[in-house]
């Protein structure tokens, strides 16, 4: 535990409730030496605030109130409500009785649920390795200070800023049976029949993964850039003196230093991939692919729970399952991380 709780204790009443959060998110990916500098700077700043008079006990709560109210009202209340609804047969138009585990046993016999679960899981498997590795390589590429590099950084980041709907539609046009990709392939005589990117159930899922990876590259690249900037130069220099080549330095210096970031990226991208909606929804023209074979869990939740005949109860039960699985996914990542730390 590396905290400066002591510093805070020396200033009773001055302990900002969210200072922990802010500091820790800085600390997390930062290796020890750089972190120490940061903390030293932070402590200095706080020390200068000494001497301000003690506050009324409720003051921190007053500061907290707006944020807390919003969180309670718009996150926590609906969260609890969803869990309650999951055990009822509530409809969108009201009503609903407690039905125990009926929704969950219905799920076991619902082929659509299993299809959706399989697709969401496949999405994680197909997307996460690429989103952990590719942005790192990209970040190392654009990390160097070469004239004009800012242009490339911006270019790689553009898809992140672009709306997923717009991006999805553009890819739909590219991948259509008469789209650009197929026209080029046909003109080059690579294929004689158009490749069914959007009409074959396997290819559609792969196409959607491609869009997700392409769109996510820039975002995780920025995360990695920040982490790479904090890899101590002296370690690199020492390794170089010892005769380590670039590959060896990558595995022995860079990777260990940014491993917490890699885990974070892995966890974030896994959670995002598990909850995929827009890419598949748009590439399949809102239908979830031929015979709905490419539907994801979130798409299923939407399909079941909306409209005038929406089954809120069943839809909530699906949401609860999604939540539990997401949580499990994340605990798994953490477990892996911990084991590696021990090793």
């Amino acid at each position, binding site marked *: 535990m590396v905290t400066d709780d002591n510093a805070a204790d020396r200033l009773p009443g001055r302990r900002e409730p969210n200072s922990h959060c802010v500091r820790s998110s800085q600390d997390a990916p930062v290796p020890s030496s750089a972190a120490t500098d940061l903390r030293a700077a932070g402590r200095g700043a706080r020390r200068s605030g000494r001497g301000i008079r003690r506050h009324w006990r409720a003051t921190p709560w007053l500061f907290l109130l707006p944020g807390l109210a919003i969180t309670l009202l718009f996150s926590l209340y609906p969260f609890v409500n*969803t869990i309650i609804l999951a055990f009822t047969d509530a409809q969108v138009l009201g009503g609903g009785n407690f039905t125990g585990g009926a929704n969950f046993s219905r799920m076991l016999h619902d082929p659509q649920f299993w299809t959706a679960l399989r697709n969401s899981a496949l999405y994680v498997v197909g997307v996460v390795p690429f989103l952990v590795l590719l942005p790192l390589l990209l970040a190392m590429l654009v990390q160097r200070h070469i004239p004009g590099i800012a242009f490339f950084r911006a270019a790689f980041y553009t898809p992140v800023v672009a709306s997923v709907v717009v991006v999805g539609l553009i890819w739909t046009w590219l991948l259509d049976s008469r789209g650009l990709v197929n026209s080029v392939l046909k003109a080059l005589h690579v294929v004689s029949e158009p490749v069914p990117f959007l*009409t074959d159930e396997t290819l559609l899922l792969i196409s959607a993964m491609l869009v997700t990876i392409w769109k996510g590259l820039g975002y995780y690249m920025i995360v990695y850039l920040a982490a790479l900037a904090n890899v101590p130069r002296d370690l690199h220099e020492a390794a170089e003196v010892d005769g380590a080549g670039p590959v060896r330095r990558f595995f022995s210096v860079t990777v260990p230093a940014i491993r917490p970031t890699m885990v974070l990226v892995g966890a974030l991208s896994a959670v995002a991939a598990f909850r995929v909606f827009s890419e598949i929804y748009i590439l399949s023209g809102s239908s979830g692919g031929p015979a709905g074979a490419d539907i994801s869990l979130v798409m299923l939740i939407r399909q079941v729970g909306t*409209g*005038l005949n929406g*089954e809120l109860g069943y839809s909530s039960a699906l949401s609860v399952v999604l939540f539990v699985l997401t949580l499990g996914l994340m605990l798994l990542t953490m477990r892996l991380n911990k084991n590696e730390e021990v090793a």
Partner: protein
Amino acid sequence: MRSARILLAAVTSVAVVSLSACGIGGSGDSGSQSTANDGPVTGDVTGTISFETWNLKAKYSDYFTGLIKQFEQQHPGAKVNWLDQPADGYADKLSADASADSLPDVINLSPDFAYPLYKKKLLLDLDKAAPDAAKDYLPNAWQGNVMPGQKDNYAFPWYLNTGPYFYNKKLFTDGGLDPNKPPTTYDELAQQGLTLAKNTNGAFAMLGQTPQIEDLGLYGVDLMDPAGTKFTFNSAKGVKLVELYKSMYDAKALLPEALSATYTGSGKKFLAQQVAISSGSAYDLQTFRTDAPSLYANVGITAPMTNTGHANMYVQGLSVAAHSKNKATAIAFGRFVTNAQNQMAFAKIVTVFPSTAGTLNDPFFTQDDGTDIGRVRVASAKQLANGINYTPVQLSDQMKTVLRNELANAMLGKSTPQQALDNAVNQCNQLLGH
């Protein structure tokens, strides 16, 4: 350790937010209030009411503001607030309003939207509330808003529509078909489709859509049992239609995208000249003219295919909320908007058709003025005289998805047509019970 804890916090919050986004609405029972819906509604036409339309403000604002002004002048003290919702998400808006018990007083509904609201006792029984209204409307239009298992109507019939089929004469010629003899039945459609596919080798297709529930109805399949309690479209006749489509799919007369296409998807394929024939409505003609002039030059218009002799009819109605505070005003306004004179005026600007008795005999609907639009109008008006709304009101969006998915399985050969329809019927019946 530390990073692990941050990770937990970060991802948990992401997960919580994701979950909570799905938990809309409470579980309050909005159907429990007494609707006091036993007899004719009487009272002064006064007070403020709200009036909700579906995707009409963008184009027809002038018509409605004029209408409202006229109504307010005729009934001093009455005031109408006009609300309009965009095409997408109308059902979500209605369900949000319904669960908050704040449905507008007068609501534009199609019968399949009216049905779930009727089931929750949120709509006014108009046969009881306005017993003298029925005679003003076409009997089949009034009947179209009678809820299953009921004798009474829950919406004043408003505008009607019926889809002609559009076909691409150039693609017909290229495909070796007679551009003056478009198919009139589903059997002809399959036959011509197979010919076209043979001649074009997949350069374009005949059709861009697997059968919808209306197609099954138009083919003569009994969709539900007479009491409306279960679906029955897995009959031998239903299987026959699916087999026709399957033969088209195998021959590439049916576009592969058809398996995942929704209605607008297939319309777009016609616009892009990738399919030779597509159902549509009279106002699509304008889209062709502006968005696809080369298609417009070759477009042919024909009556919809039917094996029953009846055309499919789409009905829009105006319902009154059961909990409306000014029922008398709401009923008066609903009847005012749907009276013969105002429907006629609306039909002249939108190419829809009035549902009032006798209005379709107007020369506007019986005499071909030589224009394309005039021709579609006259042909459509003739179909409406004996049109049937084939879509069962019980068919929810979820059931439509079930049908589309099962039919796609049949096309792909993952199940036989009989299995596919059996599956669809079973799942739909299950959803009906939920």
